[in-house]
């Protein structure tokens, strides 16, 4: 927040002019307000955007690991095998960091670890409050994170395998790209004189009343610690909604509603259907609709990033153990049971301590899963990375959007067969497993185009200790400008990735 009175006046002048211009152009007050705020952003530091993209159930490491040439961690290839999960990123690798030698907390070795992998929390239950990285960054930036999903949990409800994102409690992602798009871009109105809105003030007043009711009820339940704890969580939630209600909307840098053809296809196909648990029949839960739902969600993400309509976004395509058949991606089989769990399948002569290379595994057992994961990576590259890397940032002339964006691409486990949760250093010293990748420069705050291998300077393999993945979160938060963000279990930022 600026303190210079002249700067404050200048900002107010710009905001007022743009606001009035937007109103005249037919935008409703909220959209005009967002646009007005963008004007200040455009004239100063480019707004940074953060996007977290999840990929369910790990990788086949031999088709994931970058091939580093010699000891130069900035000289690497991402398309070294015939499948190469990261191959689509090869043209953009100047924006890419691949992280090796990191681990998730907690002992859970299977999918249940999804509940703690983005928070740094050690808890593997589903009741301990925790906060995941996108929420931490959003809070630090004073914005609301947009959490999207495509078939991200069971039709009947959400079990642990769908609990990736947390803000105290698990977050159910918005599964309708139509609703997400309308929320972000749909506030177009022809009414040049919007009515006086009493709702903003009364909403805040009411939240205070509700908070007092929750607190009052809690105080009557002496001795019932479980119920008091329930209500303490409830009270905290209401207070955080109240804090959000007191803040302004996010910044937008686009003057009109973006073109969203896939979203419109979903709108047509799902007309009249709301996201409700009706026994698995809903459009938004059906396997056959998953590819178009993911593409539509990514379309929303890309345009939201370009327009800066949402500064922090997270997307969960499928839940950890989802068994959608990946025939649509050219690699038939149930994703979890049929493709991911493909067994070690060492090639004849390979030993347990053989290097993780394509030659040491059978293609028939490994490539189908690698192709499925390559499909996820390609969705990210083709729908998001490629667009952002080639689009001028409307909020920061002279830069590409990807220059001002940080994308984090991850999974809840490493090897899809073995449920690893650390980048184990395999014999002979080949760091591998957990897919942890950043793409983008975060407004110049990130040093990119490297394999970030930890530790860099320990000569003896036996003494190697994986570094917590929360150190990556801390580094990303710093790069995004969240100076005071913290995570459980961190050992510090990664200096090699911060400028």
């Amino acid at each position, binding site marked *: 927040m600026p303190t210079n009175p002249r700067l404050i006046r200048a900002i107010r002048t710009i905001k007022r002019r743009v606001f009035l211009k937007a109103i005249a152009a037919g935008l409703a007050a909220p959209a005009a307000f967002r646009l007005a705020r963008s004007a200040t952003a455009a004239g100063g530091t480019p707004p940074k955007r953060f996007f977290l993209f999840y990929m369910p159930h790990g990788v086949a490491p031999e088709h994931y690991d970058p091939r580093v040439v010699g000891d130069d961690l900035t000289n690497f290839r991402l398309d070294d095998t015939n499948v190469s999960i990261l191959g689509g990123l090869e043209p953009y690798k100047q924006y890419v960091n691949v992280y090796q030698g990191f681990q998730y907390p907690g002992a859970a070795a299977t999918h249940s670890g999804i509940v703690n992998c983005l928070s740094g929390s050690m808890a593997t239950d589903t009741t301990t409050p925790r906060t995941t990285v996108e929420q931490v960054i959003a809070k630090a930036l004073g914005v609301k994170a947009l959490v999207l999903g495509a078939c991200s949990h069971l039709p009947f409800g959400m*079990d642990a395998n769908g609990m990736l994102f947390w803000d105290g409690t*698990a977050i159910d992602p918005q599964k309708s790209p139509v609703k997400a798009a309308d929320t972000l871009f749909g506030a177009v109105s022809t009414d040049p004189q919007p009515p006086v809105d009493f709702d903003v003030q009364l909403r805040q007043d009411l939240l205070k009343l509700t908070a007092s*009711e929750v607190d009052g009820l809690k105080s009557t339940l002496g001795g019932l610690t479980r119920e008091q704890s329930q209500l303490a969580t409830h009270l905290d939630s209401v207070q955080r909604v109240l804090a959000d209600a007191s803040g302004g909307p996010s910044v937008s840098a686009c003057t009109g509603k973006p073109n969203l053809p896939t979203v419109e296809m979903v709108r047509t196909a799902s007309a009249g259907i709301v996201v409700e648990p009706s026994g698995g*029949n809903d459009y938004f839960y*059906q396997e056959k609709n998953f590819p178009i739902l993911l593409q539509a969600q990514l379309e929303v993400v890309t345009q939201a990033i370009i327009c800066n309509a949402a500064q922090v976004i997270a997307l969960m395509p499928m839940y950890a153990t989802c068994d959608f*058949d990946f025939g649509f991606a050219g690699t038939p*089989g149930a994703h979890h*049971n*049929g493709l991911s769990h493909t067994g070690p399948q060492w090639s004849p002569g390979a030993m347990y301590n053989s290097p993780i290379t394509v030659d040491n595994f059978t293609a028939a057992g490994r490539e189908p899963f690698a192709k499925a994961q390559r499909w996820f990576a390609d969705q990210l590259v083709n729908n998001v990375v490629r667009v952002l890397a080639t689009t001028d940032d409307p909020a920061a002339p002279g830069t590409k959007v990807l220059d001002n964006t940080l994308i984090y691409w991850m999974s809840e486990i490493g090897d899809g067969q073995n449920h690893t949760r650390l980048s184990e250093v395999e014999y002979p010293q080949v760091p591998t497993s957990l897919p942890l990748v950043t793409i983008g420069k975060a407004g110049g705050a990130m040093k990119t185009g490297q394999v970030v291998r930890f530790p860099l300077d320990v000569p003896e393999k036996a003494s190697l200790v994986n570094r917590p993945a929360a150190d990556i979160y801390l580094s990303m938060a710093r790069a995004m400008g969240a100076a005071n963000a913290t995570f459980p279990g961190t050992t510090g930022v990664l200096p090699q990735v911060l400028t």
Partner: protein
Amino acid sequence: MSGGLGARAAVGDGGRRLLVLLATGLASAAGCQGAISSPPGDTGTGNRGGGGQSGAGGSPNLTVACSKPDLGTPALRLLTRSEIVNTLNDIFPGISGQWASTLPASNVSAFGFDNDSSATVGKQFASALMDTAQSLATVVTGSAAGTFVPCAASSPNRTCAEQFLNQYGRRLFRRPLTTAEHDRYLAFFDASVAKSNFTSALKWMLVGLVQSPNAVYRSEIGAVGSDRLRHLTPHEQASALAYTFSGSTPSEELLARADSGDLGDVVGIARDLQSTARGQDVFRRFFQGYLGYTAVSSIQKPNLPDFSAVSGDMIRETDAFITDVLIGNRGGLKELLTAPTTNPSAALARFYGFPAPASDFASVARPAGRGVGILAQGSFLATHASSDSSSPTKRGLFPFFRLFCQPKLEPPPNVPQISQPMPGQKTTRQRYEQAHVGSGANCGGCHRRFDPIGFAFEHFDEGGRFRDNEGGLPINSADAFPDPSDASASRTLFSFTGQEDMVTSLVDQPVIQQCIAAYMAAYAFGTGEACIGASQVPALQAGTIGLADAFIQLAAEPHFKTRNPTD
């Protein structure tokens, strides 16, 4: 298997593959001990297309051996998404579709149900609840004000607001408002009017009532009596009856009975509620969580092009079957598992190769030798299968977990591959046996406990259709049923030749009645506390009561009215 996991931690980095061997060796040598996590699927812990696992999951700590009914703990039970929507539709009828719910999905408990009593209000829920309440209140106080606030047209004043508060506050809180609550809301209205206008002030007062903790939690706290136990108030009992047996808020009539201090015959009320359409929905919803069958409509079977056209009908088939067998005929677990009828649509009957029903979802006799009961229906068989083949493991796990209440098993981190289907070369059973108990396999420690059960279903393909052979190869659906309580899988309960034979012998096992009673209690009470709903087990075992009536009788359990004093 837990030994395998312990060994894993000890090995440390660099030895992952060695660890694989250690883990499987230990698992095999030590037998299969339950651990609390997710159950193994074919090659891990999957569920197909979103839901199978919720029905096939294990039963952590569900106690089946109960010498007497017990009391559980007090609770604040957060209403589920569907309960909130039902409640608002019931209190404000006639405007459904004019307002929208944005409430997130309710969390599914380890038992497979979405009404866990420990559910909490997170920020997302709190925010969505307010948005939903605002959407509703905008309609109630706006376009539908003539219906719900008739005094607004002639006298938009404080008195009108107070009438509204007294009428709808009582319905939303499911009890009369206390004086303090009444005054608090009216003060909010007064302050809001001063800032806005009558309609806005009334709207936000209603939003407050809808999102109040007194509205969104079902209080099962009670008052401590001279016996030092907590006794639920008549209004708390009325709410428990209404939500447990009809999935929605108490009616005016039921609230009036609570106001009088005497609900009367609570079992009779439960019976009346269950006889309604909503009550039947709630009862069927138990089986949807217990069996996980609704997931069938969200999945694909790439090798069965006709499957997606009938998968939705499979849900309706099972719903209609439950309605006929359990609600209409008051059947029990025996009838559920062995009824010789089913309820397909005409299209589904064609898919199965069955005679067409008189009308869609009418009861028809299953052709002889084509299976019996609910476990021979497409919704179960297709959900508990792989996309391209049947799955003896998934199908075997259902009885293991959900009929015998065995604790969950932790799969090892190195689950081996099941080879791809080999039509005309190997049957599914041969592939599974090779992978799990064949030469060099190390999975028998666990899989011997449930795969043989699944072999009984091998005459049904991945879509739930009967098959005489598998790609021209003969099918072997015979085996011996392993005693689930024997971790070494060395004892068996009975031998069978196929699905019909297996379930016919299965229904004679007393423990399955104990187990389903425990699951019904977990569903009704939102908790897996021990022995709070076991009173009807002897009657279930004797066959003198059906499942629908046993569910109703949960209203007569001591836990329904009385709780232990503390958590």
